[in-house]
């Protein structure tokens, strides 16, 4: 097991390096630079700025310097937010994004599994059709469409929650972003749970359990659910990645000060170090999540063991 973990970490390093390299050159090839403004800077001031951030060096040299800094855990200074380093900005946005993402995941897992089981147990009857139709909608309607609709309905017409903003993680500001972020995940988890539970319910050991005279509820709870959730668990890795990429849009729409908002603003401002910092951070997080999920999988399924 220990060896397996070490192996996985070792393979993660070249993946991350590739990500850093591709991202580094991609942001540089985008037209426009961090110091192109409407009131353009006079050349001597721009030269001073470029020198200050080492942007006047040849690109390969900047790349090497950047890699060296990353090895020391330094993501560099932000060009746009001149009073902060990228490390500080990510640290400031992280608790917010974690809270948002964590709650969305939790909501998605609970509601998704409940809805999926409910649909499976009422297979081919109207509850099944309703849940699956809703799930299909949830998967196919993107969150940048859902968010304004929710704002229109619940913030403007009904006036139940604020239209956006953030105040010390006060729950009123969390309701809509969490729901918007969770919706596609709920839908996906519900579908996964349904199909996997149906499959399990038809297997021999469930028939045995039934034959023993256990009630339908006990059969599902005690015997069927655990194996049926394996596909859901393996989906949690991609789901975490989905929450992160989703939060980029959600944080922008709802004005939430998380890491995702820095990504959008960083890209618009050509804040190279900030964009790269967030990409690397997200990349590392996705790799870590996938590893975690694989380990969790081994705990749930006795047939899976790592050597």
């Amino acid at each position, binding site marked *: 097991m220990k060896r397996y973990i070490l192996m996985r970490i070792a393979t993660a390093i070249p993946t991350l390096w590739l990500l850093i390299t591709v991202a580094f050159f991609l942001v540089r090839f985008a037209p426009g630079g961090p110091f192109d403004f409407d009131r353009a800077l006079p050349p001597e001031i721009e030269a001073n700025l470029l020198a200050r951030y080492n942007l006047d060096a040849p690109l390969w040299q900047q790349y090497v310097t950047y890699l060296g800094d990353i090895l020391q855990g330094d993501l560099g200074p932000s060009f746009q937010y001149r009073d902060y380093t990228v490390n500080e900005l990510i640290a400031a946005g992280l608790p917010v994004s974690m809270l948002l993402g964590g709650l969305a995941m939790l909501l998605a897992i609970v509601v998704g599994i409940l809805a999926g089981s409910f649909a499976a147990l009422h297979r081919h009857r109207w509850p099944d059709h309703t849940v699956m139709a809703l799930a299909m909608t949830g998967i196919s309607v993107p969150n940048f469409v859902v968010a304004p609709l929710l704002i229109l309905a619940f913030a403007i017409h009904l*006036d139940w929650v604020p239209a956006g903003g953030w105040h010390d993680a006060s729950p009123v500001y969390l309701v809509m972003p969490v729901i918007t972020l969770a919706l596609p995940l709920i839908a996906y988890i519900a579908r996964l749970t349904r199909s996997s539970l149906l499959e399990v319910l038809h297997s021999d050991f469930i028939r045995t359990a039934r034959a023993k005279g256990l009630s339908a509820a006990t059969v599902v709870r005690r015997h069927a659910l655990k194996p049926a959730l394996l596909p859901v668990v393996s989906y949690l890795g991609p789901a975490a990645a989905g929450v992160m990429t989703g939060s980029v849009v959600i944080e922008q729409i709802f004005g939430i000060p998380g890491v995702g908002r820095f990504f959008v603003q960083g890209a*618009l401002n050509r804040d190279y170090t900030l964009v790269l910092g967030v990409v690397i951070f997200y990349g590392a997080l996705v790799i870590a999540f996938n590893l975690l999920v694989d380990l969790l999988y081994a705990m749930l399924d006795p047939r899976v063991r790592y050597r």
Partner: protein
Amino acid sequence: MPPRRIVLSALLLLASPLFAAGDNHLVRGNFLEPESLDPHASRGVEASNILRDLYEGLTRTGPGGEILPGVAREWRQGEEGREWTFVLRDDAAWSDGSRVTANDFVFALRRALSPATASPFADNLAVIANGADVLAGNKPPEALGVEAIAANELRIRLEQPVPYLLSLLAHHSAYPVKEAALEQHGSQFTRPGNHITNGAYRLRTWAVNERIILERNPHYWDAENVAIDTVEYLPIDDEEAEFNRFRAGEIDITQTIPLRRYESIRKEMPDALRVTPYLSTYFYGFNLAREPFRDAPKLRRALSLVIDREILAEKVLGAGEQPAYALNPPGINDYSAPRPDYADWTMAKRIAEAQRLYRESGYSDDRPLEIELRFNTGDNHRRVALAVSSMWRKHLGVQTRLAHEEWKVFLQNRRQGEVTQVFRAAWVGDFNDPITFLQLLEGSYPLNDYSYDDDVYDALLAEAATTSNAQRRASLLKKAEARMLEAQPLLPLYYYVSKHLVQPRVGGWQDNIMDHHATRDLFLRDLPMETRSRP
């Protein structure tokens, strides 16, 4: 607070701190997160709004946009406006209680112009003796023409007379900074606790992308006349979200309004809406270095003549914008921009003249002008571009291709001038003087994206720069602007307006062309929260 929200809040077991903000607490929408709270590093309007509360320069802008004494109590000029002596208030103090001295300004101005600081507005300050050389790194910062004659006396020597110097010194790039704080905390000197400022307020909280809270500075020399205890700046770049929060009574002053709601706001919240001319012009530039506009003043004039700016301002924009015929907006100190002859012609006469010039330039219905109009992506810019191009097509038969690009891509293309023909541009004056607009078209000026290069124009500007007589200077500048407008390297379209929503409980607000509204000039009327306006 609406009853439904109370119920829901209770259901969610909320202690909702936002709705229970202190009575003497002002909340302002502020568009974006400021890039810095270092006065020499920041650039945007967002930062300058906050810095205006935190710092005070030798002079400051008053509630009506006028220049008032700041840290300097009085001043005198010598050597025909090339030497200024400022006498500082003895009671001017930093937020740590120490005295603000002339040396603080010497340090700050040297820092602002030092190449290592890379201050984005340093070029404005290069009018100080040796300023340009210091900025370019040819001379050490110590060579700059500023010196402390006494603890409370500062002398500034200038390269040439600068009649707008007092305006310039009120700008955040000329604020003092506390040397000891910089030395002790380095790049962390703007953090709460480290930030030592000399304005009416000091920094209490800075939650990046969430809020910045300032509190009253007890050491400020005029602290007894500061009414509001705390002020909170919220970065909200979505104007719809800002509007909703204003309606819910969560924000006292918005940065702007959603354009498409202008009419309904005007009807439903007339007391809250403040629309004022702003020191800013929206125009199209011609690239004079490329075909078809190189050496084609007649063609450029024809394209300008057929634009009905009144329709543009009233129908296409319709939020109080004013039609523009010149580069300098109205309301500038001691200056009125020239008005081209055609501005007072009837539309029919303008169109007839335009068609004649168009044909003389070698174009006709069979051989129409084909051009590309480039602008940065945005709903408003697209509407203006559509309106202008349809006026060109209708009256002249010009075929215009609209090309829009993401902001930074657009800026790069505009600056390089290799692909542009006609392009969108705008300018906001850094300070209240015509030169901030006119220098844009100086042949050697680095921000001249039009390739306009006219010796006579440059000579007029140069002559104005050495004139200490205000009237003569204004007439020289006006002559230069009239000459430039006739050559038409650009096509003025409209003057911007600033738009805010201000809650009725906010007092002391005065509309002004600079759109400067320091919190120290505001106060809150004694209104309970329930009576806040709700349409």
